[in-house]
């Protein structure tokens, strides 16, 4: 992004929520959703991510795509913090239904520039009801 583009986009900051519902490697949705979110964040928008249904598998640790011949883009989730995305919501019910706990998810953190680069956790487990409120409070909701 050039300086000129940056100045054109500054001003209006909207709350974007990217809702991810699909497993990571069976389709392009997960990778596309992540890239679009990063692009939004690069334009200095207020970006949050939500993971529900099979989407919770996107954050699973130790993904390995070597047998299916696709790119393992899961390390890119760790870049979200660099793009100043600090809010990741994972629906508790979806996680539990799939026999997963927070320990099965990548320990994603962001570095707080204003607090001597201290690493702070990004993943928040929320109930379906809490997530509903978060969706209602967002200006733009995009589904992937």
């Amino acid at each position, binding site marked *: *992004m050039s300086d000129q583009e940056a100045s054109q986009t500054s001003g209006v900051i909207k709350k974007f929520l990217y809702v991810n519902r699909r497993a990571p490697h069976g389709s392009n949705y997960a990778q596309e959703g992540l890239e679009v979110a990063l*692009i939004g964040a*690069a334009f200095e928008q207020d970006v949050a991510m939500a993971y529900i249904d099979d989407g919770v598998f996107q954050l699973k640790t130790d993904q390995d795509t070597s047998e299916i011949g696709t790119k*393992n883009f899961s390390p*890119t989730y*760790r*870049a979200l913090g*660099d793009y100043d995305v600090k809010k990741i919501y994972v629906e508790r019910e979806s996680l539990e239904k799939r026999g997963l706990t927070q320990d099965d998810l990548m320990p994603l953190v962001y570095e707080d*520039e204003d607090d001597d*680069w201290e690493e702070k956790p990004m993943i928040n487990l929320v109930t379906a009801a809490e997530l509903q409120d978060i969706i209602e409070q967002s200006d733009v909701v995009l589904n992937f």
Partner: protein
Amino acid sequence: MTIEVSGKSYETDEEGYLANLSDWNLELAEAMAKEDGCDLTENHWEVVNFLREYYDEYQIAPAVRVLTKAIGKRLGKDKGNSKYLYELFPYGPAKQACKYAGLPKPTGCV
């Protein structure tokens, strides 16, 4: 499109970014820079190498704002600022340095 270096030809996209990450070598980086009229100094290499490490770790090429912040953290505030980076890479630090690093166009560059 292709770029020729020492009798070998390498595939690139229409903007000159290398098609296959694994084709990259030092000579190729220098040839790409030369086409843009840019001589790679130690300061350029510092950024190019940083980008290659970043890609290796995160599987993406960072947008310019992210690059600037990360360089500042790694190499100090006197290098982690737009002025310094644009002087090195006048076509845009992330865009131009990613090209020489053999990476795709940065995520967040439209």
